């Protein structure tokens, strides 16, 4: 579980209940259940300066709201009592907490402070505290839910025993009883979402509460890249049922776990507020909704026109790509390459690396957060070429991209459909000098339609530019750090003083350090301790440097943060990046 994401989820639901000016950016996973609005908004309490409150009572409430008592480690979701004051680290804050000072039963002062330094940031008049879990449930409901769980367990056990499934019965009984004990003792348990129907008291078959129930009635829903998002909404519920049935059949869960599911498409459709579908290639469903009516936005404010599309033969595609990518890199731009398979992306990355290009790959098995870092590093120029499959499509904003190369463009299919091609071509449309090369031996129907659409847009854009005398300019956009962490913000600038090895940063630093370590051990074994000590110091400097104590900005090369997608590695679904092949010599993953 990711701490930052959990905090932002709490912050989002809280904002929806407390403010009118809320914009929530969500992925389709928001179709999954969370705790109900009723209990979540009921399990809160407010404190006012000058009001009366019993400190013991507040502590009891906090515990019921899943806050933990943490006198020593004061982190998000903890509280601690310090004499006459109570300190709470609310679930939606990252780096500030509240201190409530009591005078007997009176709330004397409320202040917001920095938990690290203890410094008071602001004086507050009133605060409202929300639970530390979306599944927080009031005591009586919890008791009722426990009874219902026990009842369902007994019925299910009878059934399983009658069928002779003794192992399953045993497994289910053990697990459910354990969860029940946890719920009784702490008010929650691991995987409590599977009991959500008991907690919310809904009927079998009813959907669990979702973020959509938190939305106010007057909200507006925007579906970005609707041609992908809408089908995804439909797909969410489909795979889920089969998996849950298996879990229930084999005694891993009670049958009610089936009701902890994402919204079905029809339910989402009934629930959604006023909706605006946004896409460069709207899908059939949303076009059908509006009866084919749409608002068009083809002219770019920057005056940029859709990129020219070239077609080259498949035979020399890799050789040609190397030449083109080098040219693009020399011009100071980046190249995006799309292949058909993950394996091909990985192999091509290795090949391009050997041809002297700075290259990484990105596909669905590269972890999400790693992907963000990869894109950031690409934009910063840590490397010049990114090889991918279809992650290099919708909305990926890389103004530095000067070339999009689509390999095997004539292999008609999902990845080379009209929509896919238009979307991929669009990646080069952020740059004046953007170009697209399709490697194909024949022109497929999809290619033809995609190119016709691109031409239509180009014509319209050129006409507009001529009419208004506009010269296109490339978009300049800051490379924002969505998930920037503290260590990046306030790093100390220290020179490594290690001129000869500086350029390894962002490259093969780990391998180099491993080599140095060998040398150091060898020197020590040869009793040359002074040499060994010198090497040791060098290693330390390099490691410090890598840990984020940055090199002097004037001299250091741009340093990457992404560690995935390195040439000569593979990334698979259930494991981290592995080195390709079976060579015995261990080499670091590189940076």
């Amino acid at each position: 579980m990711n701490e930052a994401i959990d905090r932002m989820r709490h912050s989002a639901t809280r904002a929806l209940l407390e403010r009118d000016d809320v914009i929530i950016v969500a992925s389709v996973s928001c179709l999954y259940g969370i705790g109900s609005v009723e209990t979540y908004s009921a399990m809160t309490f407010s404190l006012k300066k000058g009001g009366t409150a019993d400190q013991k009572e507040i502590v009891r409430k906090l515990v019921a709201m899943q806050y933990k008592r943490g006198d020593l480690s004061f982190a998000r979701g903890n509280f601690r009592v310090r004499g006459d004051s109570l300190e709470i680290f609310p679930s939606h804050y990252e780096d500030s907490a509240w201190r409530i000072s009591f005078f007997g039963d009176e709330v004397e002062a409320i202040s917001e402070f920095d938990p690290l330094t203890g410094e008071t940031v602001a004086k507050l008049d009133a605060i409202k505290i929300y639970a530390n879990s979306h599944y927080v449930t009031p005591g009586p409901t919890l008791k009722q839910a426990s009874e219902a769980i026990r009842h369902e367990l007994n019925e299910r056990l009878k059934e399983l025993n009658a069928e002779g499934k003794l192992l399953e019965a045993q497994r289910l009984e053990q697990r459910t009883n354990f969860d029940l004990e946890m719920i009784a003792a702490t008010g929650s348990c691991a995987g409590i979402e599977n009991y959500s129907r008991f907690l919310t008291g809904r009927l079998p078959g009813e959907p669990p509460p979702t973020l959509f129930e938190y939305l106010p009635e007057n909200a507006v829903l925007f579906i970005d890249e609707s041609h992908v998002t809408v089908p995804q909404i439909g797909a969410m519920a489909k795979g889920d049922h089969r998996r849950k049935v298996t879990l229930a059949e084999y005694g891993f869960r009670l049958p009610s776990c089936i009701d902890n599911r994402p919204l079905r498409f029809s339910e989402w459709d009934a629930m959604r507020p006023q909706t605006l579908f946004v896409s460069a290639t709207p899908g059939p469903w949303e076009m059908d909704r509006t009866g084919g009516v749409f608002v068009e936005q083809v002219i770019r404010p920057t005056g940029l026109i859709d990129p020219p599309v070239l077609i080259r033969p498949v035979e020399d595609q890799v050789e040609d790509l190397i030449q083109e990518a080098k040219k693009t890199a020399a011009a100071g731009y980046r190249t995006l390459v799309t292949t058909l398979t993950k394996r091909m992306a990985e192999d091509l990355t290795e090949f391009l690396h050997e041809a002297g290009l700075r290259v990484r790959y990105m596909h669905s098995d590269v972890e999400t957060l790693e992907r963000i870092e990869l894109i950031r590093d690409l934009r910063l120029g840590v490397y010049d070429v990114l090889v991918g499959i279809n992650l290099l499509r919708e909305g990926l904003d890389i103004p530095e991209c000067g070339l999009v190369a689509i390999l095997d463009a004539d292999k008609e299919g999902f990845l080379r459909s009209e929509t896919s091609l238009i979307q991929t071509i669009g990646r080069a449309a952020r740059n004046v000098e953007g170009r697209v090369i399709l490697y194909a031996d024949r022109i497929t129907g999809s290619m033809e339609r995609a190119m016709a659409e691109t031409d239509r847009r180009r014509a319209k854009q050129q006409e507009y530019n001529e009419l208004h005398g506009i010269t296109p300019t490339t978009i300049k956009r800051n490379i924002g750090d969505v998930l920037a962490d503290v260590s990046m913000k306030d790093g100390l600038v220290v020179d490594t003083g290690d001129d000869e090895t500086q350029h390894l940063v962002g490259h093969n630093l780990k391998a180099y350090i491993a080599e140095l370590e060998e040398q150091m051990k060898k020197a020590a074994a040869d009793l040359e301790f002074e040499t060994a000590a010198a090497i040791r110091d060098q290693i330390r400097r390099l490691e410090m440097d890598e840990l984020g104590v940055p090199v002097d900005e004037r001299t250091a090369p741009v340093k990457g943060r992404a560690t995935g997608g390195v040439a000569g590695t593979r990334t698979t679904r259930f494991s981290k990046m592995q080195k390709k092949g079976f060579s015995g010599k261990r080499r670091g993953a590189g940076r």
Partner: protein
Amino acid sequence: MAVQIRTNLAETELAQFTPHRPARPEKSEGGRAFVMKTEYTPSGDQPAAIAELVAQAEAGERDQVLLGVTGSGKTFTMAKVIEAVQRPALILAPNKILAAQLYGEFKSFFPDNAVEYFVSYYDYYQPEAYVPRSDSYI
């Protein structure tokens, strides 16, 4: 009222689905307006698109489609629409990367409003599952 238990594993289709609309308590920090901070003004096709979308939204049109080519400032148009209608918004993106990107952009457009990010907990989704054939529980 006792909670009804589940006695079968079938996918239950409800005869009629009525969305649950629970009552919400009073907002304690309500009444703040959306204020968009940007140095850009709409240009190209944007002014016409924004005017049309806002007019239709205020006329109560339930569904609208915006066909915006890459780089035509779709995000900017969305932000302008939100600013014009002054209503809370949920923006759905197909994946986390795009969600993160949109989040960054909206945060810079609306620095004083509550721009929030709501994605799945897990860095990559690995749900609880059991494969009977190989007897493996993940």
